[in-house]
């Protein structure tokens, strides 16, 4: 079978390579401006800091590919963190308990999102907006408005520990990335996600249980948010009811920068990871250069718009 490079690589994906090039370029520029940037400790710190946003972004990538959105991510981080922290005091439960409870909380909230969205046909934007507020409230109720501190050392290892010199959050990130990529690219579920987002009617007519796919997607998003919540809680060694405010926006930004189209049907985990890294590198670089956060916000906005413009440009030139 004859096939050239251009056949295998749809034009649309050039956007993603463009973002990768942008990441490399920005890294080069930062390396030239400040010698502090391109060092192993600094790069390690960037990836550690990125891990939480990347975990959330993986989840929301699933959701956006099916044509949905999940605004409850930040609140889920808070709830799952608080839940995990409540079971993580020293000499109370073994480590699996806080982890399982945290994950369970995330999975339940995610499944709740999926359930309401599929049963009521209310747009995901509105449902998850509601869950965002509910989640924040739950986090405050469960913690009585106060941070939950005094967590066990084993629990704190997740966010602060190192294995063979590699910070544990990076390991979590790598495992999650590989798993999510496999789900998206190699499983029936992953293929169905693209189908549902690309053309929901056609997916249904092809015998796909669209509701089930959506249930899965929001549940996965909840589970990954729980993972992020646990890592964050362990990293700051406190369950914070007000943690994660606005995290959903950064996660969505990472997915979009990485080439996931908000109209559904396209996107890759690699793209999302690059998007998250890009955000992290810029934030780290501007901190190193002591640029105030005001400019950082402007820079982030410019990048998001740039990525989407690039995406739509590729789209029109492809069709």
């Amino acid at each position, binding site marked *: 079978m004859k096939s050239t490079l251009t056949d295998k690589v749809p034009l649309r994906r050039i956007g993603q390579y463009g973002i990768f090039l942008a990441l490399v370029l920005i890294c080069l520029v930062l390396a030239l401006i*400040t010698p*502090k*940037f391109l*060092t192993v*400790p*600094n790069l390690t*710190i960037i990836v*550690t*800091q990125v891990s*939480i946003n990347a975990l959330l972004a993986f989840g929301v990538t699933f959701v956006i590919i099916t044509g949905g959105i999940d605004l409850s991510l930040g609140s889920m981080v808070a709830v799952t963190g608080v839940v995990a922290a409540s079971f993580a005091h020293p000499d109370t439960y073994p480590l699996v308990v806080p982890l399982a409870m945290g994950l369970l909380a995330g999975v339940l909230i995610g499944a709740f999102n999926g359930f309401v969205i599929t049963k009521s046909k209310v747009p995901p934007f509105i449902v998850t907006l509601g869950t965002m507020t509910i989640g924040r409230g739950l986090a*405050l109720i469960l913690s*009585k*408005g*106060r*941070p939950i*501190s*005094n967590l066990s050392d084993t629990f704190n290892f997740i966010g*602060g520990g190192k294995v063979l010199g590699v910070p544990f959050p990076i390991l979590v990130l790598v495992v999650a990335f590989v798993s999510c990529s496999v789900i998206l690219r190699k499983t029936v579920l992953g293929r169905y996600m693209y189908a549902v987002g690309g053309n929901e009617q056609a997916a249904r007519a092809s015998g796909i249980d669209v509701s089930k796919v959506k249930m899965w997607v929001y549940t996965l998003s909840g589970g990954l948010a729980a993972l992020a919540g646990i890592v*964050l809680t362990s*990293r*700051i*060694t*406190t369950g*914070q*009811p*007000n*943690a994660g*405010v606005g995290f959903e926006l950064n996660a969505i930004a990472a997915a979009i920068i990485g080439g996931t189209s908000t109209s559904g049907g396209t996107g890759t985990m690699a793209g999302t990871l690059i998007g998250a890294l890009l955000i992290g590198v810029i*934030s*780290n670089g501007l*901190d*190193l250069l*002591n640029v*105030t*956060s*005001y400019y950082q916000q402007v820079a982030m906005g410019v990048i998001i718009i740039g990525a989407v413009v690039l995406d739509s440009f590729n789209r029109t030139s492809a069709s």
Partner: protein
Amino acid sequence: MKRLPITILAATALLGTFFTGCNRGDESGSKLTVGVSMLSMQNEFIVNVSDEMEKKAKELGVELVVVDAERSALKQVEQIESFVAQQVDAIIMNPCEVEASSPAVTRALAANIPIINVNSETKTQPTAFVGSDDVESARIAMRYIAERLGGRGNVIMIHGYMGQAAQLKREQGAREILQNYPGLKLIAHQSGEWDRSKSMSLMENWIQSYGGQINAVFAQNDEMGMGAVKALTAAGLKDKVVVVSIDAIPDALDAVKKGTLDATVFQNAEQQGARAVETALKAAKGEAFDKQVLIPFELVTKENVAQYLK
């Protein structure tokens, strides 16, 4: 035809409330009601102040109606308006913003209901103010840093949300002291948005760019101070850097006891809450009261931390 009796009924009911409203002051003996609008019940310190108020109210037999403004000045103004409509006997407000919460004070005063600002200020003068001077808290923190470093060294400051009253005042206080010590150099400052993980990331990045040059960190609240401590400990630098923050939340007190956080500044929630309720009560009953009740800050270090730990 049927509509007429209802209209009359409604009018009577309205007049009724009007007259009972006028009689308000004479009902001595019955329980007084105080409306309370708090900045944010997601903030531990504010929750503490609110708890102390409840405690004091119980003790004095006052009924408190506490609402959460969720950091929205608009919401706060609306809450005060509804307190005015409910004809409460006094209002305690923990303002969200200096300017934007001012209309709430005006509304209350216009309705002849005493309004007491607690913890922070508004532009419009309320009936009374109970709280502490944020500028002073930062002066205490920075003075401690100056002493520890012997007046010489590199300092980093982590701000709260830029432009908020607490951030502005704490920055002002810190800079006043820095000016008195020309040997102290502010090498970097950035907003940590009052948030522990945000401040931790910030500190991690600073450690990359300044490393061993950092001698002290002043964080404008304990959450951010704890984040900085985490980052410094992970980098193995904690022993070489002095970290001071403000608020004395339980987590920070623990850290001071362990020696990871060098000092925090105690803002007396108990006093603020209790004195606010007392002042509100006096104002409602028409008794004499202080128009400004300033609760002093206290520096908490390893030496005196025991007395703050409950």
